[in-house]
């Protein structure tokens, strides 16, 4: 249909232009956040060092819970700024028809997985199997790359879905989608469910496989001091904090989207076109992101995950004994 095609072309242009324009006001807000993070980082380092020492000397419940609080706050605040979890979740929610419930499940499960991965890495590999910090870091980089690969796959899946939908709409814009599908496809509902579960798992793993650097630092520290339990507890508290922030963003994304759709009374073919377009745009964005992460990782890490730290004049001495 002529009008729909023209509308779609317009939408694509507006999305690309809008992305560029919208960068300006957000950039300002984001910068102040970065400034805050810079000073916050030192505070975090100092706090966990102090609290762990306190736990070691006093064995007090209060010290343990205040470390957990530090972890929780770090998780909640840190995931506001950097990190790729929120990016994947909100892009996905925006680009797909997924609802709020699914978004929240993904954020919660992926934060939990993130904590488990960090614990398994630091305590499992280092303490049980005696891996050095270097080898552990290399494993972390490997996991990161794997999760970035998954991100790219999610992007591809989104694009595929969007393109299929678009193709269907352009072929027969008047037809209802279900009437043509129900006839020859067996049990489409069941198929959808399997497909959904796969993409849900993909989301959780793509976000959760990459351990949070703050959690690793905390666990390394706790291990050094010798208070493993408190480290694990604080790591889960951190995951809870992360889930809180990422979950809020998911809510915000889904609500704004439905509000926008309601206000414009977008429905029928237009809505389907919008979804198809968003799916393709979001998929592209997610692929771009995954590729950027992947290439920056391989550029900086090369063969050895900690090479920069190891070569630093003041860090060399710390690695000497290992």
């Amino acid at each position, binding site marked *: 249909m002529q009008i729909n095609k023209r509308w779609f072309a317009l939408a694509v242009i*507006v*999305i690309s232009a*809008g*992305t*560029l324009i*919208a*960068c300006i006001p*957000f*950039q300002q807000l*984001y*910068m102040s956040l*970065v*400034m805050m*993070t*810079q000073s916050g*980082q*030192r505070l975090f*380092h*100092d706090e*966990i060092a102090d609290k762990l020492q306190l736990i070691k000397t006093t064995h007090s419940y209060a010290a343990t819970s205040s470390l957990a609080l530090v972890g929780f706050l770090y998780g909640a605040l*840190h995931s506001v700024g*950097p990190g*790729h979890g*929120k*990016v994947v979740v*909100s*892009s996905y929610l*925006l680009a797909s028809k997924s609802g709020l419930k699914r978004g929240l499940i993904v954020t919660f499960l992926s934060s939990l997985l993130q904590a488990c991965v960090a614990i398994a890495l630091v305590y499992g590999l280092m303490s049980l199997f005696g891996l050095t910090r270097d080898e552990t*870091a290399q494993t972390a980089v490997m996991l990161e790359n794997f999760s970035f690969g998954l991100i790219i796959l999610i992007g591809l899946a989104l694009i595929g879905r969007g393109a299929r939908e678009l193709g269907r709409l352009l072929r027969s814009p008047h037809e209802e989608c279900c009437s043509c599908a129900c006839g020859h496809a067996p049990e489409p509902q069941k198929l959808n469910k399997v497909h959904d579960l796969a993409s849900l798992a993909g989301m959780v793993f793509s976000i959760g496989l990459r351990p*949070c*650097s*703050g959690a690793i630092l905390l666990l390394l*520290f706790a291990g*050094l*001091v010798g208070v493993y339990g408190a480290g694990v507890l604080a790591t889960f508290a951190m995951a809870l904090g992360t889930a809180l922030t990422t979950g809020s963003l998911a809510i915000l994304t889904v609500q*704004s989207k439905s509000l*926008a759709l309601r*206000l*414009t009374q*977008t429905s029928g073919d*237009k809505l389907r076109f919008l979804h198809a377009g968003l799916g393709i745009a*979001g998929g592209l*964005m997610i692929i771009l*992101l995954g590729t950027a992460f992947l290439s*920056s990782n391989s550029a900086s*890490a090369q063969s050895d*995950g900690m090479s*920069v*730290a190891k070569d*630093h*004049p*003041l*860090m*060399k*001495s*710390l*690695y*000497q*004994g*290992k």
Partner: protein
Amino acid sequence: MSLNKTVLFLACFFALDLSSLPAEAHPHAWIDYRTQVILNDDNKVIALKEHWVFDSTYTEFALHDFNKGKGGGKLDHKLLMDLAAENLKNLKDVDYFTIIEDRGGKKKIASVSDPHSYLVDGKIALDFTVWLKDPADVVKNKVDYMIYDPSYYVSMLHDKKDAIALKGKNASSCTSDLTTPNPNKATVSLAAAIDKNGKAPDDLGTYFAQRMTITCK
């Protein structure tokens, strides 16, 4: 709200998403330092006595790792001295992160003396004195010095404004001044965008470095 506005609105979210950064940013360690400027009788700078205090994280890793490497036991006086010697040895190629300039440009460092480490409030301190090859003339022109890590892996700042002391027979006629830069937001975010294993541009640290100026009457 028109449909185009809707699309624009949604695009904003994508834009916000794009501004994501790697998780752990530069810097990764922090040093608070104090300096003593050693002047000769003619008020020429001959040496700089530096007192660095590492942050708790660095201290903790050093206490455990350096310890382990040397066969266990407490981090006693001897091990701390070994750590100081090791750090100074590794800092030699980067001029101990110390730049001293007069009108003629960067002054050459001749040697370093008396490196030693000890604990201050549970944190590792590193003291040493940097000796200049030729004295820097403060009477004829002002002398600047900076202490910083060019890669900004470590953030180094004077811990207090009065952390500069001038030592010498006629030092009373000299004054010191400290300028803390106000790096623009782009630079700060550049630093934030480099994660632990990332390589920083060679001069990133200069944007955050304090400049100390000595003038004598």
